[in-house]
């Protein structure tokens, strides 16, 4: 298993797009922190990068990589290797290199300029989102045989998690504006890793007070040790479930 991970990671790290992604993150985060007058404002800009660019890059790159490795996968499957091993190695390689790229491009910069719990939270959720969205990409890629369709699905999924889901939430909030929606919203936010990460970071940034009663309810849940533990367990589930499902599909897939 480690062998395959090693080959996948070396292959990806040599990939020009991956290098460009790392450089892009590096330039962006450095310029954000040196241009903004306060580090806390820099963190807010980093928040957008972590919540928008990281998932987009992770899901699209992973999907394309899986499709482009179809032959490699075929080659490996004809070898005496467990399918599960092959697929998990691919995932580990992808998630690992995306995380490395994020850490090298953004995580380290954040921790240098803002070595606080907030900075740490941004870095950790960034890594989580990298892994989660490559997991989702694995599932998208294994379900659709057609490459164009698969990449389309990946983009749609990203759009769903970063935009449509929140649109739906907005719609629900207006439909049920007569009811106290704060507590149900905690539950709803668990269904979107991007929302969950955003709330976790915002609560660490101490702007929860601004969110008024909503913020207070959220702080009561996400601010406690149990709440943070539950959130990270849910984030882990967001990795385990798509990967597990994709392994099952891959095991029965015709190549």
């Amino acid at each position, binding site marked *: 298993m480690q062998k395959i991970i090693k080959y996948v990671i070396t292959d990806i790290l040599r990939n020009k797009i991956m290098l460009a992604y790392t450089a892009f993150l590096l330039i962006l985060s450095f310029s954000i922190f040196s241009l903004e*007058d*306060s580090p806390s*404002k820099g963190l*807010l800009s980093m*928040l*957008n990068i972590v*919540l*928008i660019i990281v998932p987009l890059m992770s899901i699209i790159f992973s999907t394309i990589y899986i499709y482009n490795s179809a032959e490699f996968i075929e080659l490996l499957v004809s070898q005496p290797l467990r399918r599960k091993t092959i697929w998990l190695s691919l995932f580990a390689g992808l998630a690992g290199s995306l995380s490395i790229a994020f850490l090298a491009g953004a995580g380290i910069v954040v921790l240098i300029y803002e070595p606080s719990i907030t900075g740490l939270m941004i870095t950790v959720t960034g890594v989580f989102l990298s892994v989660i969205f490559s997991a989702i990409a694995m599932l998208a890629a294994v379900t659709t045989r057609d490459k164009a369709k698969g990449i389309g699905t990946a983009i749609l999924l990203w759009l769903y998690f*970063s*935009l449509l889901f*929140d*649109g739906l*939430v*907005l719609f629900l*909030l*207006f439909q049920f*504006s007569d009811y106290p*929606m*704060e507590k149900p*919203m905690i539950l709803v*936010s668990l269904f979107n890793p*991007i*929302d969950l990460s*955003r*709330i976790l970071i*915002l609560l660490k940034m*101490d*702007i929860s*007070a*601004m*969110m*008024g*009663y*909503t*913020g*207070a309810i*959220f702080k009561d849940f996400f601010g406690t040790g149990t709440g943070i533990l539950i959130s990270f367990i849910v984030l882990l589930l967001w990795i385990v479930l798509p990967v597990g499902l994709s392994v099952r599909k891959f095991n029965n897939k015709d190549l």
Partner: protein
Amino acid sequence: MKILTLIFCCCYLGSFARILKVGRQQPYASVTAAVAAADNGDTVIVEKGVYFEKNLVIGKSIVLKGIDHPVLDAEKKYENISVRSNGVTIDGFLLQHTGVSSIVDFAAIKIYNSRNVTVINNIINDAFFGIYSQYGIHCLIKNNTLSAKAKNEQESGNGIHCWKSDSMQIIANTISGHRDGIYFEFVTHSVIWRNNSFHNIRYGLHFMFSNEDAYISNIFENNGAGVAVMFSKGVKMFNNYFKENWGDAAYGILLKEINDSYIENNHFEKNTSAIYAEGANRILMKKNVFKNNGWAVKIQASCSEVTLEENNFLENTFDIGTNGSLVLNRFNKNYWDKYEGYDLNKDGEGDIPYRPVSLYSMIAEKNPPVMILFRSFITSLMDKTEKVIPSLTPENLKDDHPLMKPLPL
């Protein structure tokens, strides 16, 4: 004989005042005894030490002066000093262990129906109420330090509490840990100047039914709910700092039913809402700096003729929040750091108007749970779209002459 005594007394008063000393090696061992012996115009000097005077009542216009802050301890049962005469001065004491009661408002120093009382240079620790003026007129409360460790609103009193008073001067006091730092109710023609009010559990300054007062150059920091100014008119607020009033229902200033007032040259920094105005009319907000607040100014629809002029809006999450159409208020020549317009004729004013209300802040105002989408992609997208094609934000709510550069404030 009686006449003789009277004449003697008059001569005595008119010619020279006596000095009565209290202390271990002094003629008087207790302050009560010295005060009882004193006549109008005398000075009672108290040396360093701890005195248990129960409730010290001062019914004569005397000067009570402490050397090196002698301690007056009320054993948690009494009011330390009750002033029941005009022209009393209390200077340089340390007052502690004031009684706590749910029926009577015990205070470290309480002024009852008196004029020209001066309370200066005292230290008041852990009092229920600190300095309390009831029907006080023309009193000076200056350079006192009040600190308490209030835990909840029910079991705590205010730092400086004025009720139905007039022409009060509250100057350079430091107040912390009380329920309200400074409390004004039915107080007129008074000035609150250079005080520092912080870490109070409710308001740094609580101000009600008090007309024609000014508060100038005070610092209100980190109070539970900031500063509340309510049901008053003719209030002048100049050069104050409102900082870090950060919390669920915290405001820099809460304005409620305020008319004909001026808010100028103040600094608002890191407040959840710097100014929250409800039912405020004819208010001029000029040359203030709003920096790093959640909302710089929240104006409810019940306000009218509020003018915001020549203010700096810097790094606020939302500049203006409102729940209505807000056309009755005016914005002019402010600097908004979020302004993205241009200035072709180089007159220092942007050529296109700035709309300070974002769509998202309006939605969040109507439906607070929407705040969970704070800083999400969809809300920033909504705001950007709204900026290009305004549809829901009030059409006339705009600054027609936004400044290109911040004012030097």
